[in-house]
């Protein structure tokens, strides 16, 4: 007698909605060839529904926690989790998607009939990463990772006018697949060592047993870290990031970077903190070393860039290091808060890039930003706030985020990492200041960039969020604190 597995629709409702939305977009396009706006509305509708479903998930999580019945949060025979951690990450992913679509809207419109494909790909990528952050099974996680990643590979190469787009796509694809292979090989080795694939099972395994010859498991851990390190663009697995950020269409780069980072770190937190929490003496030094390396490589390389998108890419590498400092700190609150505020800042920054360099992103050299403060003071001011936020200056959300992860890392005994981190953040100041210098202190006779309303919304929202969370961080911090993993 085989009992059919219990289906918990709520656990995958947002993902289902988005997947359906993607299908509808494609079908509608094929059938009626409507105006882009119609497809946009469908996408928006799907996203709103997905957000609503996630809200329901949050309520369900709260119920379960009140009822002290965490078993309720495990769905699909232990494949999917619907814990606070997953819900928070999913919110972040959906938020990034909304902002990403808004930022890229002009670009998507400009793609003509292929706009539908872009919308569908975006939604599918979100589905993949959303499953990834919610999965309790390493193979499931791999599936989510691949669904999301493959969608991103295609997105990266969607631009026809710019040859760099091809290059970005093939690089991203080849290296991404390469890294995925490492990741999944690591999963296989962990499985070989423990016989478990589910995260909670692995945790239970290490709670019960002490492994006598753990070499295989260790290699597996190392490979998993390397694979995830690629996704979050941590040094030395970062080399794809600048090329892809620069080559891929500006309209979607912010989205790509944000969701990959959210999902990658959520997965890293799940695997390292939840599954391998008992082995932290094994992976802590590695993660700390990668964090230090990322912060330094990212900051110093960003310092010498002439292209704002590459600079943001390297800044992303540095941020990966800061978030990994949070992983070393071992508190999901710090990691999630950092991810959320960074995603917002990153999307806002890329919205500015889109505004300045046009939809295809041809003009993203730092020279194109000269005198922006004169040409378009609002945009320059917003960009300044976002850059200062990324730099982590007080009164911005970035400062609170950095402060959080630093405190956690200090708490877990990694004082040296905090020292390295504060020094690296000083180097980081230098390149954020370079852009500000160009905007405010250099003069150039050029026209003010035309601002698309959707981009304006994104920038405004990001600026408000950056300042608001910098001054009143409490609400978001509380949310992140409650977003516990099972």
């Amino acid at each position, binding site marked *: 007698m085989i009992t059919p597995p219990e289906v918990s629709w709520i656990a995958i409702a947002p993902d289902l909605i988005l997947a359906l939305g993607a299908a509808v977009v494609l079908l509608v396009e094929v059938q009626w060839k409507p105006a882009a706006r119609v497809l946009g509305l469908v996408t928006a509708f799907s996203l709103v529904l997905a957000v609503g479903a996630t809200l329901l998930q949050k309520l369900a999580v709260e119920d379960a926690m009140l009822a002290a019945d965490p078993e309720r949060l495990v769905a699909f025979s232990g494949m999917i989790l619907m814990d606070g951690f997953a819900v928070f990450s999913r919110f972040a992913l959906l938020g990034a998607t909304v902002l990403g679509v808004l930022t890229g809207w002009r670009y998507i419109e400009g793609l003509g009939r292929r706009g539908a494909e872009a919308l569908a790909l975006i939604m599918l990528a979100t589905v993949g990463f959303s499953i990834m952050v919610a999965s309790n099974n390493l193979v499931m996680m791999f599936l989510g990772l*691949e669904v999301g990643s493959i969608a991103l590979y295609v997105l990266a190469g969607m631009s026809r006018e710019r040859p760099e787009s091809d290059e970005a796509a*093939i690089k991203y694809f080849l290296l991404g*697949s390469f890294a995925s*292979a490492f990741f*999944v090989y690591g999963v296989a080795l962990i*499985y070989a060592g423990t016989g478990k694939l589910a995260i909670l099972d692995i945790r239970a395994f290490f709670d019960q047993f002490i492994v006598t010859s753990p070499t295989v498991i260790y290699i597996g851990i190392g490979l998993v870290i390397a694979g995830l390190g690629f996704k979050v663009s941590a040094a030395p697995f970062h080399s794809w990031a*600048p090329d892809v950020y620069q080559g891929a269409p500006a309209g979607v780069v912010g989205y790509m970077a944000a969701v990959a980072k959210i999902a990658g770190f959520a997965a890293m937190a799940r695997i390292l903190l939840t599954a391998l929490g008992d082995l932290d003496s094994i992976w802590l030094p590695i993660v700390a070393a990668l964090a230090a390396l990322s912060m330094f490589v990212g900051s110093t390389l960003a310092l010498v*860039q002439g292209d704002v998108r590459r600079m943001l890419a390297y800044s992303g590498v540095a941020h990966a290091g800061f978030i990994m400092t949070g992983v070393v700190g071992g508190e999901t609150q710090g990691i999630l808060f950092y991810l959320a505020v960074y995603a917002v800042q990153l999307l806002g920054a890329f919205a500015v890039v889109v505004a300045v360099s046009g939809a295809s992103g041809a003009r993203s050299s730092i020279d194109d930003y000269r005198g922006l403060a004169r040409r378009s003071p609002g945009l320059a001011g917003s960009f300044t706030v976002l850059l200062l936020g990324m730099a982590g200056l007080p009164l911005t959300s970035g400062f609170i985020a950095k402060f959080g992860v630093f405190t956690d890392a200090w708490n877990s005994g990694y004082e040296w990492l905090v020292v390295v981190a504060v020094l690296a953040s000083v180097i980081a100041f230098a390149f954020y200041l370079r852009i500000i210098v160009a905007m405010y202190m250099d003069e150039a006779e050029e026209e003010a960039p035309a601002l698309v309303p959707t981009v304006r919304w994104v920038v405004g929202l990001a600026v408000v969020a950056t300042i608001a969370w910098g001054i009143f961080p409490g609400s978001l911090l509380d949310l992140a604190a409650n977003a516990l993993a099972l």
Partner: protein
Amino acid sequence: MIVSAGYYMALAAALFVIGALGMLLRRNVLVMFMCIELMLNAVNLTLISAGRALNDLNGQVAVFFILVVAAAEVVVGLAIIVAIFRRRSTASIDELSELRG
């Protein structure tokens, strides 16, 4: 003769390394592609032999998923390569190194 799982896993490791090195050494995008497939299949072999050794089905089931993923990757990858080939009529990856620094 019963061959222990260790040998299979060693073979898988060797395949994985060969695939990784091939990825680094070959210039043709298609061949690099195949190398990645090789790496994924090494993973599959590992999972199967481990599952067999542990007498656990999960590992073997996982192989199906990975096979599917590999197939999906091929589809997307070939599409990208075709797109590039149309524009540049070359499949050498070294031609694609304009983004750097």
